């Protein structure tokens, strides 16, 4: 098992390099020019001043030189400075990441627990009330766009009823986490709904499929209780495809959801990325994109590990 993990982890390094190359050259070959973004349209600035500004940001050197400078700095721990705001990218990431993380983490946990539970229960009690509730939620989550749902939530709970804030993450009166909790409710809920639907459907279908297998009959045949049949025998087999979905949502923890953060004015990484992309703020874009790519790679490895743990066939090299 240890060798297995090590192999996978080592494979990540060359992949990360390739990703960094892609990220760098893809973004730099677009037309976005941060220097022109900095200057408002009404302001006249002479060509020499523009060039001087470019030089200050190192934008005048040939691309491959810029790439090596960037990678070099990165490996030394210097993530560069935002062109638009002047703050260090590391600081930007450090303050936005926790915001994105806490939101996505809550949503992932809630959606996974509810989605899987409802899905499994729907499969067990087919055509029962739970099944209907589950199907209803599934339709809701898949057909309603997240931003629409979010806006409706804000209108109902924040504006009409006034129970929750309209957006943002915090205010000056906040001292502990629990003071801040009310800001988390609506964004987490909105983010969860869409995620719940997919998980629900997959869990349900997977569970149904497993329940039709012969080994479930064998299990029942032993005379064990239904509960044991479902939990010990069925669940562990049914969860494998579902794990894939959950693991591939892990990048949300780092990259965040653009839609959610925008609708709720949540100060996370996605907001930074959007702002940086519009203004051509390369240092921010490149580091954040690289970060997200790294998270996806890690998730992939994690998935391999967990699958191996769940399914001995994979672990022992077969199939």
């Amino acid at each position, binding site marked *: 098992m240890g060798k297995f993990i090590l192999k996978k982890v080592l494979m990540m390094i060359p992949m990360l390099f390739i990703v960094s190359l892609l990220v760098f050259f893809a973004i730099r070959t677009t*037309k*976005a*020019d941060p220097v*022109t*973004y*900095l*200057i*408002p*349209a*009404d*302001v*006249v*600035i*002479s060509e020499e*001043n523009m060039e*001087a*500004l470019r030089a*200050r940001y190192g934008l005048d050197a040939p691309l491959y030189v810029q790439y090596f400078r960037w990678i070099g700095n990165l490996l030394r721990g210097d993530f560069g400075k*935002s*062109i*638009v*705001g*002047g*703050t260090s990218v590391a600081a930007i990431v450090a*303050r*936005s990441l926790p*915001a994105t993380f806490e939101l996505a983490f809550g949503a992932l946990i809630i959606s996974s627990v509810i989605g899987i539970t409802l899905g499994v229960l729907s499969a067990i009690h087919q*055509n029962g009330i739970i099944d*209907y509730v589950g*199907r*209803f939620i599934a*339709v*809701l989550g898949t*057909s*309603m766009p997240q931003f*629409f749902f979010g*806006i*409706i939530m*804000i*209108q*109902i709970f*924040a*504006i*009409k009823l006034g129970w929750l*804030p*309209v*957006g*943002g*993450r*915090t*205010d*000056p009166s906040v001292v502990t986490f629990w003071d801040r909790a009310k800001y988390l409710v609506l964004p987490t809920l909105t983010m969860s709904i869409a995620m719940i639907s997919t998980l629900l459907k997959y869990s349900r279908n997977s569970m149904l499929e497993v329940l039709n297998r012969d080994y479930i009959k064998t299990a029942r045949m032993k005379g064990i209780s239904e509960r044991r049949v479902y939990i010990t025998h069925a669940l562990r087999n049914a969860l494998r495809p579902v794990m894939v979905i959950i693991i591939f949502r892990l990048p949300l923890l780092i990259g965040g959801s653009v839609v959610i953060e*925008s609708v709720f*004015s949540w*100060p996370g990484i996605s*907001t*930074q990325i959007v702002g940086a992309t519009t*203004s*051509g703020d390369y240092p921010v874009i490149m580091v954040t994109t690289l970060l997200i790519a790294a998270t996806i790679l890690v998730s992939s490895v994690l998935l391999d590990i967990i699958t191996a743990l769940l399914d001995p066939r994979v672990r022992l090299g077969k199939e």
Partner: protein
Amino acid sequence: MKKRFASFVALALVCAMTLAACGGGGNAGSSTAASTAAEEVSEAADTSAAETTEETEPAAENENVLYYIATDDASSERVNYPFNNRARFFCNLLWRSLLTTDADFATFKGDLASDYSVSDDGLTYTFTMADVKWSDGEPVTAEDVKFTFEMILQLTSINSNYANAAKQIVGANTFQPGGDLEGITVDGNTVTIQLDSLYADFEKIMSQIAIMPKHVLEGEDFTVFAQSSFFDMPVTNGMYKVEEVVPANYIIYTINEHYEGEKPQIEKIHISALSDPIVAAQGGQLDFWNTNNPAEIEAFRAMDNFTEFDINILYYRYFVVNCYDDDGNPNALMDPKVRQALVYAIDRQALVDAYYDGFGVVSNSGGVPNTPEYNSAQSDMAYDPDLAKSMLEEAGFDFSQTLRLRYYSGDQTTQNFMEAIGAMLNEIGIQTDVMKFENDATEELWTLRNYELAQKNLSAFTYSEWYGEYINENYAKVLGDIDPEFSQLITSYNTTVDAAERQQSFDDLQMMEQEMIYKLPLFTVNQKLFVNTDKIELPSGIEFGNPWYNYDMQFESWSVK
């Protein structure tokens, strides 16, 4: 069967939730039809609510905080840089200028300067510094004034008004960073500014330029001052100082204890990072907001607790005309007759009626109708498609070419009227291609220049700003050489101090503009300001001015009920 039933129930519930939620005003950018429908729903809801209770909210205690949001031109990452404009009141409360003015920008009195005088020839301005302190306790000195002007000459990102004014100072052209600006002399607490040539709006500019602290900023690199860490927690000289900045979350202003004037009654200003003004207002996170976006205006009008105010500002919406094609050769628009014809081809009154009813007016030059400076002798260039067509044919316009119409404003109203304009031009046989700019506006307008007509906006502080555009380097790229008489008129307008002479130049300019149509005028639009008067008590008879500029808002008299 059962699945379909479940889906149907889901659909019905979705519709119900949508209707429930949509009551209370649509969002910015929604079409008028949708928001009217939403309004009707909300009105129905409100009336039913009103029947049961007298007031929606009892006279509860409001916290002594004014709520605002940072959006568009303001930032929630750090305090705003005051040298592009005063960013919708943000900077007014933090930094003051030598002079201050009223909402009309007509009368001036000292602010950081206790007294000032102008020489007879209008070239020398002398200011006596008042006894004012910075928020860190240090006194505001004449040195700070000189320092600020030297700084302005080095800033890359700066309002053209300030830059032009600063360039008039003696020695500005030869000034080097680290050197000494000859034209400004400091003597104790008196500062004297010597101008090279007359600058008509100098007093106005003096009421706008925010004075910066030399003792804090000496040695800063001003080419990138906008990104300076100074703005993470700046030293201020206004009524308020910055208490807390949580980037992307909120910024809190609190009362500057070193402020020497009448202390303001509102304890704190809370500026949050919420992106939608309507939602923010509905959620109690926004207490005043200015806009000229019809959808936003409608939404705010629907909120009972907000009172509407008119703000007269010079906000021009017009087309930049590109007289060169992509190869650098003059194109059809180089002929002034063609440009004139295009004005007649657009029914601008209809557009104003549709989108800016009551707060917009068709404009035909730099002058604004119904103002005293407006030259009523000029034509109103009313919509006349037949005239337009015949003018174009006479000028030999090639109807097979496609005119590229572009715009950069992201709101629905702009998109709508651009489409409408495209359609109007199609009516007389002109092919058009209407699209939003993909890249940054500055780049598209002045570097790439892949358009024939580009919709641009100008929030002008003075008429000079409007005319200044004609003769700046950017416009030279799209207009080529302009008529020397025209540029002469502009210069004399800028430099004449005598009011009557100035008006004459202005009149002549307006007439010439109609001949030349170097910019294709559409309309001027006023701002509406909405204040949450259920919460905020305003001084009686208050008048509001251009929110992007500094004027006396009588903020010390604002209070929370």
